[in-house]
């Protein structure tokens, strides 16, 4: 061995092959490429696997109850009769309350933190604080809801019932937990989502639009409402849909304040339940096959609705992105 290294090169074959590592490098490269491809494939397939697995487990219940599941009000575990209407109703209504409450607040935050009402060093911290709320675990928000929000809303509910009790929305005595606290707590949780995306959208509208509008004599708010909103509408809509998706699937905070009573009641002060809430409450104890299967059916419905909402949101935001590049 020492011989060959010390000798001058006798012929071509003795020249050290400077590309000697090539084989190794090429193998490593190929291996790396395939590892990346396989892991990516696994990651991309998860979402489809979820649809298939949950759908398959829901099959017995789908065969038993069919689409009537959605319109039936009965949820009788010992009797093996399952209907989803109260849960679907509770999920939709609490999310709609949340959207109604959250949208004006979130858009206000977006406007206050993008337009030059305040100096930059005040605006950024406000945006940061609002986004920090999104990082708080929902179980902590739920705990706060039980001990702070419900006692805070209780007198308001009593007052609403006392003065507007003839109106079906406030037709029952407030219990404490119920639909209104659930909607309120959801609103608090989706404000950061809607606000931060709307803020990005407003920040990305060209400064020229503002200048042109103001030069034509529009006031600041005429500019915001007449020029910026139309320019940002698809982004804000996308943000709202993402917020809606989050509200529909939010579990812990809602479960802790909604009262978990499956009923369809017009009154916002009444107890209610949602799909995620019943999943959280009953899955761990579910033993019976049809019970588990019906819970899977509920999860599948929730999955389908949030999937639709999220896909729509992704397309809206992407549409905005491609518009911004032109």
């Amino acid at each position: 061995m020492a011989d060959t290294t010390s000798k001058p090169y006798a012929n071509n074959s003795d020249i050290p092959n400077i590309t000697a590592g090539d084989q190794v490098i090429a193998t490593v490269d190929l291996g790396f490429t395939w590892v990346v491809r396989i892991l990516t494939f696994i990651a991309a397939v998860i979402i489809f696997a979820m649809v298939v697995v949950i759908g398959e487990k829901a099959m017995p219940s789908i065969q038993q109850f069919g689409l009537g599941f959605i319109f039936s009000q009965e949820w009788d575990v010992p009797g093996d009769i399952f209907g989803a209407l109260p849960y679907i109703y509770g999920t939709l209504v609490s999310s709609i309350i949340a959207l109604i409450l959250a949208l004006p607040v979130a858009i206000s935050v977006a406007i206050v933190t993008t337009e030059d009402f305040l100096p930059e060093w005040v605006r950024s911290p406000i945006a940061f604080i609002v986004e920090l709320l999104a990082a708080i675990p929902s179980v902590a928000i739920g705990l706060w809801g039980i001990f702070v929000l419900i006692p805070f809303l209780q007198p308001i509910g009593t007052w609403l019932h006392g003065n507007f009790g003839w109106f079906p929305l406030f037709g029952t005595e407030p219990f404490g937990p119920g639909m209104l606290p659930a909607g309120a707590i959801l609103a608090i949780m989706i404000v950061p989502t809607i606000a931060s995306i709307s803020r990005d959208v407003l920040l990305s509208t060209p400064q020229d639009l503002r200048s042109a509008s103001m030069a034509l004599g529009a006031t600041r708010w005429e500019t915001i409402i007449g020029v910026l909103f139309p320019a940002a509408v698809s982004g804000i809509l996308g943000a709202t849909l993402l917020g809606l998706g989050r509200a529909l699937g939010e579990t812990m905070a809602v479960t802790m304040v909604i009262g978990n009573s499956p009923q369809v009641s017009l009154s916002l002060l009444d107890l209610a339940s949602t799909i995620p809430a019943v999943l959280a409450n009953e899955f761990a104890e579910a033993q019976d096959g049809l019970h588990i299967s019906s819970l899977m059916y509920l999860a599948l419905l929730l999955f389908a609705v949030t999937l639709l909402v999220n896909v729509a949101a992704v397309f809206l935001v992407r549409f905005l992105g491609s518009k911004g590049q032109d």
Partner: protein
Amino acid sequence: MESMPSGFHNTSLHLTNEQIAAKICTPLKPIRSYSSIALTVLSFVLAGIAILPLFSLLWTILSKGIPLLSWESFTSLPAPVGQEGVANGFANAIVGTLTMVFMATLISVPVGICTAIYIAEFTPTTAASSISSIVRFTMQVLSGVPSIVVGVFAYAVIVLTFKGFSAIAGSIALTIVMLPIISLTTEGALKLVPISLRLASSGLGASRFQTIARIVLPTALPSITTGILLAISRAAGETAPLIFTALFSQNWAQGLDKPTPSLSVMIYNYSSSPFIEQNKLSWAACVVLVVLVLVSSVLSRLATQRRIKLR
């Protein structure tokens, strides 16, 4: 009658400077200026309302929870209800949360980074780019899937198959929660690495693996760290995917294939308990969890000065 229009015409031609100034400087119609002021006030009030819950929340949790914390909180098991003078804590839940988040991180970081590499680096502008946009799309959709549905999936795949609640099922659920966060933030970070760095590396003879492993990833490392920390903070706070996968236990977890306690599930279980001691434990655990989550999410922002958008 006929002289009126011409007279009017005349006067408007011969305005004095003061009259012109007065015409131009006509104040806004009251309705316009008042509505502007009203909307400004309204938006500030609403923005104030948005900030209020966070302060109320932090104040409540800290003021209720911190007095209940002690050394024993971190070292002992929950005391049996009704027993006075026994060390009371939630060490088992802390260990459980850390274990499951650690296992989930171990899986989701490599998979998430590889997915991001595929989307950002394996796209030679041809047919592959449509595949990578599909992958990206599935990641975006996955990030919007409610975490309770992720829990249901892990329940169906692991718990029903192996007939038991386990830390493994919980970790798998958390992995699926973390994966899209890591993947999307890493992809954003990789796309910010200048193309010239890749060209320079290839020009010096580096292979794709060498370029990615030694040039692209180290350059993007701060932003990738941000994504990982964000995902960890999200996973640590998740309850819904654990509640019927890892379940809960009053004792130390007996193994990775046995029910495992976690901070978040403990807070949920004890919050509705009729026993005051358990409510108190819930508040104390809440402080630990919120501080853990907030510290890692603030750290994640400090890791990069640039803000990387998640959703």
